[in-house]
Every structure is written in C-alpha cells, then in structure tokens.
C-alpha cells in the first residue's frame, strides 16, 4: 500500500513491514548494547585498538544509531493492518523451519538416503504437488542428491542408527555411501 506523500512514493521497496522490521532491529540493538559491560571485557594496560570491547562497541553503536535514524526517517511510522499482516507472513515460514529441523533430526536416525526419500516427497506434497508424477520426480531428485553428495562428493554426513540393523556385508557400504 503506497501513500500519497512524496517520501512514500520515492521510498525504495515496499513500505509494508518496514516499520516492524526497524522496530525489531532497534529493540535487538538496544538489548545487546545494554549487555556490553556484562558480555565484554575492558582490559587494563592494553591499547585501545586491542581492547576486546572495541569492535562490539563500534558495531552495536552503529546498529543503534543507524537503525534509529532509519526509523525516524521512515515515511510511515504508524502500525497499520498491513504491517501486522506482513509480520504474520514472516512467521508463516516457521513451518518450513520446523520441516528443516525435523529433517536434520531424522538424518542421524534413519540415515541420509531414507530421510531424504521421505522428506523431499513429503515436502513436495505439502507444497501442493499431490500427483504421482511430481512425487516420483521428487523421490528421484532426492536419490540423486544423496548419490551426488554422499557417494560421489563424500560430504561428511554420518550414517543412520538404523544401519546398525543391517547385515555385516552391506552395513559399511550403506554407512559410507548413503
């Protein structure tokens, strides 16, 4: 929603949500700078440039000052309905964060291959691709990802606890490749 004032028309990017973001950033900056004395140390007989407190102080002062001026210069400083709607939109992605964390939690238990073969089709289903073709595609892509990264590029992902139940002959193969 764009207003009539010159500042609002010339504002770069959408105005909705800017106020809430600036307020949150300012609150975080103030909270962190209030902990400066407690969370950092000023060491005696040490040069100013080598003080452990120097850079957190510069960074947090900058955050407070620049966010404060940004907030003051915002063309709209009233919390309207669109602002809250935008904040709600940000919170909606927490669902996908939960999906991601669940995937991370599943991998050491079920192993990378099974977890991916469950996760990607399930997420595709959740995203609205509920036909057989897309679910199959997602499973094939999931399998390819595992083969490329774990088997071919040998990235460090541990084998699943479930692999312990496999027969000795294939156990190490699965731990190393899937």
């Amino acid at each position, binding site marked *: 929603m764009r207003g009539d004032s*010159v*500042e609002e028309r*010339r504002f*770069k*990017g*959408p105005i909705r949500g*800017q106020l809430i*973001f600036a307020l949150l*950033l300012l609150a975080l*900056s103030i909270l962190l700078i209030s*902990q400066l004395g407690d*969370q*950092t140390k000023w*060491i005696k007989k040490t*040069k*100013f*440039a080598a003080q*452990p*407190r120097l*850079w*957190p102080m*510069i*960074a*947090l*002062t*900058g*955050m407070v000052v*620049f*966010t404060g*001026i*940004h907030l003051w*210069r915002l063309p709209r400083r009233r919390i309207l309905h669109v602002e809250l709607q*935008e904040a709600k*939109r*940000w919170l*909606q*992605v*927490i669902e*996908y*964060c939960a999906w*991601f*964390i669940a*995937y*991370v*939690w599943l991998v050491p238990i079920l192993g990378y291959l099974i977890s991916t073969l469950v996760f*990607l089709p399930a*997420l595709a289903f959740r*995203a609205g691709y509920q036909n057989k073709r*897309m679910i199959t*595609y*997602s499973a094939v*892509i999931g399998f390819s*990802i595992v083969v490329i*990264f774990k088997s071919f*590029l*040998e*990235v*460090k*992902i*541990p084998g699943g606890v479930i692999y312990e139940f496999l027969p000795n002959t294939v156990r190490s193969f699965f731990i190393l490749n899937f």
Partner: protein
Amino acid sequence: MDVLVSALEILMRWDVILALLVGSVGGVVIGAIPGVGPAVAIAILLPATFSMDPIVGLTTLLGIYGSSMYGGAIPAILINTPGTAVNALTTYDGFPMTTRGEARRALSLAYSASFFGGVFSVICLILFAPTLAKIAPLFGSREIFLAALLGLILVIVVHRGQTLIAAALVCFGLFLNTVGLEPVKYTKRYTFDQSFLSGGIDLIVVVLGLFALSQAFYLLNGDDEKIRLTKLRGGMLQGLRELAKHPRVVAVSGSFGVTMGMIPGVGEFTAQFLSYSYAQRSSKRPEDFGRGSSEGLIASETANNAVPAAAMVPLLALGIPGEALTAMMLSVFYVHNVVPGPQLFANQMDFVVALYIALLILNVLVLIFLIFATNSIINVVKIPNRFLGAIILTLSFVGVYSLRNSMTDCIIAALFGVIGFALKRLSLPVVPIILGMVLGGIMEVKLRAGMARVKEPFDFIDRPIAFILFLMIFGVLILHIRRVLADRQEIKAEKFANKHASTNFGFYLKKRQTRIMNTRSKSVRRSHLRYSRRDK
C-alpha cells in the same frame, strides 16, 4: 613465460578439467533457473569443496560464478524474469526484442557480449598481473584496514535510498563477527555463557541461512507462475558479427566492468548502470533504449560478465572480498591454509595466473555449450517455484550439516533463513551483513597490527597508499553527502511542485469568504451610515 607454463601445468589435471566442465555447465543451468542464482549454489556447494584441492574447489566455484550470468540472460530475454539479480537490466531490452520476434538475435547478442566481457576482463587482468604483483606488497596492515573500510563504506553508499538500513546491517555483520572467544586476550564476547557460541557464529552457516534457506522459504511461500516459452530456431553465431558493429560500446562497457569489479563493494550493478547510461548517451538512437535496443543489451551483458575476473583482484591481491560470492570463496582459501594477499602474489603467481586461465577457458566452454544447448536449457525455467523451494531446502541441509554435523548450526541457519526471508520481502540487501562479517574480522586484526607502530593519529596515513585510500574514503563520503543533500532538494522541489491551488482549496475558500464578508460588511456599514445620516 615460466609462470604461464607452470600455471598451465596446474590446470592440466583431470580433476581440474572436470571441475571446469561441471562448474561451467552447472553455472549456466543454475543461472537459467530464476530463483536459484550463483549465491545459493555456491553457498550449498561450499562445504563440499573443502575436501577438494584449492584449485579444484575454486575452479568449480569460479565456474558457477562466471557462467551463471550467461544462463541468467536466457529467462531475462525469453520470459522477462532475470535468472540472476544482475540480469535485471537485460530484461529492459532483451524482452522487447523477444516480443518483436527477435528472441534468437537477443540471445545470440547476449552470449556474444557476455563472452567478450569475460574474455576482455581476463586478458586485462593477465596483462595487469605483473603490475599488481608489484603494488600488492606495498599494502601493509594499515592499507588493508583502510581498503576494507573503503569496501564497507562503498557497500553502504551504493544502496541508494537504503543507505541507513544498509549501514545498520553492515554493523549487524560486524557484531556477528565479534561473537565468541576473542583471539588475542581470550575473553568471551556475547556468548551468554553458552558453549555453542564460544566458537563464534560460522560465516558459512550465516551465508547458507541468508542465501539458500531464505530463498527456499521465499519460493515455498510464494506461488507458481505460468510460463510461455518461445521456440528458438536457427544458429546462435550472428551476435558475434553484430557485436563487431559496436566496438565503442563493447570496449567502454568491458572497461567499466573491469574497473568496478576491482573496487570492493561496488560490483556488477554499478558497472551495468554506468555502461548502460554511457551507451544511451552516446547512441544515435537513445529513444530505443528500454524498447529492444541492441546497444543496451550489449552494454549490460558485457559489463556484468567483465566483473567476476576483476572481482578476484582484491580477493587474491589483498585478501579483501568485494562482494558476497568472493567472500564465500575466501573461506575455501582459509580451509586450505592458503592466505590470499600480497604474499600469494609474490610466492604463488602461477596459482593466480592458473585461476585466470581457468576463467578464460571457462568462457570458451560456456559459449560452445550455449550455442548447441540453448534449446534444451530453456526448459529448466519451467520448474515450478515451490517445487524448486523444496529442492533448495533439501540441498541446504547438505551445506549446513556437513560442516560440523551440528544441529545447533542448522537451527542458527534456519534463524538466519527467516531473517533473510524478511529482508527479501522488504527488498532490503543481504550483502552488507556478509561483508560486515568478513571485512569486520579483517579490520579487527589489521587495526590491531597497524596501530602497534602508530604514535600519532596521522602516522596511520603517512604512507602513500594509505594516504590515497584515506583520500578515497574522504571523497566517497563527501560525494555521498552531496548526493543526500541533492536528493533532499529534489524532494523539497517535488513537494513544492505538487502544492497547487487545489491542495489549498479550503484555505482559499476561507480567504474568499472573509474578503466577501469584509467587503459586504463594509458596504452594509456604509449604507447604514448613509441612512443614519439621512435620518439626521
């Protein structure tokens, strides 16, 4: 000549050649998919390259970086959606050409211009390398500190209209870098007595959160788009002939790309903007720009492809990354204990030249690949957005988890994913956070080392390069202040211009009423007075 031979020896390995092929083809495909981009791909692949040789890992990443812009031009021209952010200007003239039925000509021109930009910058830098090798050792701690500071200031001021929030985000990046155990005095900084924060916040975790996870969330949260593709017929070589008709635009755009790429914090957007403005100003048909001008397309594509090779200069010569992609590449050097900077130029010049030759070969490979495979590549733009989001989320896991197999890292990355998502929704820049983190660490170390022999403040800039850098910082700040004041004047003028009679209607009505009333009351009083005189 010896350097050239040993550089070629470094490249003549099957794994390097494979990395070049995979990087170039992968980069084109990644660039052609709107919504992925080289930053997401490099962030995901970064941990996988840690187990490779530095030259193999860097060649793969450079391949993606250098070739993604070729691929990004495809959806920009065919469906008006830039494949990578830097192809946005390509849509201005590329898509109107497609609507005129000249899609093949536009693509061919874009490839040719990109090829020229890439090759031109590599040749410039190979020729410039000996001079650079002489200048680089003149950079001590103070000079590197000032160059990093200049980079930070430039990354703030280039975000015109968003400088205040960009500055706040740079400071946020600086703060993130300070979290953990301080490396000299071993005191804790903002760890809140939590063991997982003692080691600090890993740059790659933040990068993956801000680029890859946020993009996955953004795509999953959005809608799919209906795409209509134009069928391409005919060869792709006519662009090279057409490019030869505009040597001035091509040379100037390439030079802008090389110059802007070398300055930390500036990059593709400024290079494109300057080239496009120049091409428009000097064109015989400036009215065609934005409506399918071949010169406009050439200017933007040549400039953006000249940047990647040039962007490696501050990284290799000074150890200072100029933008997010080279900041990610810096971590590949660190993992292998190769410290980029003046010493690299002095001791491992063959390694530097090998990287440039790799970029040169890469441009040739990409052009050949695109001439034959464009018709097949264009199909990747059909991948639905939310499905792509699910794939990126799955791939992001590899990037984050393979670092340390840590659940905490994944939670931190998810948190930065939400922050990145909010920034994307608000069209706010992410790069200042990354550069703040990377350059903040460099600045802290270099300031400490540089101040060791400084007694008075002016001693800090008593060397010629330090003084020049100081003047550059001063100049940039003065120019920025002038621009801010000019913007304010413009706003004032616009406000004044909008203030016409109708906006003050109430005021004029009241004034008129008062005048009428005054006139009327005067006449009434006068008449009353006249009658009263008659009565007498």
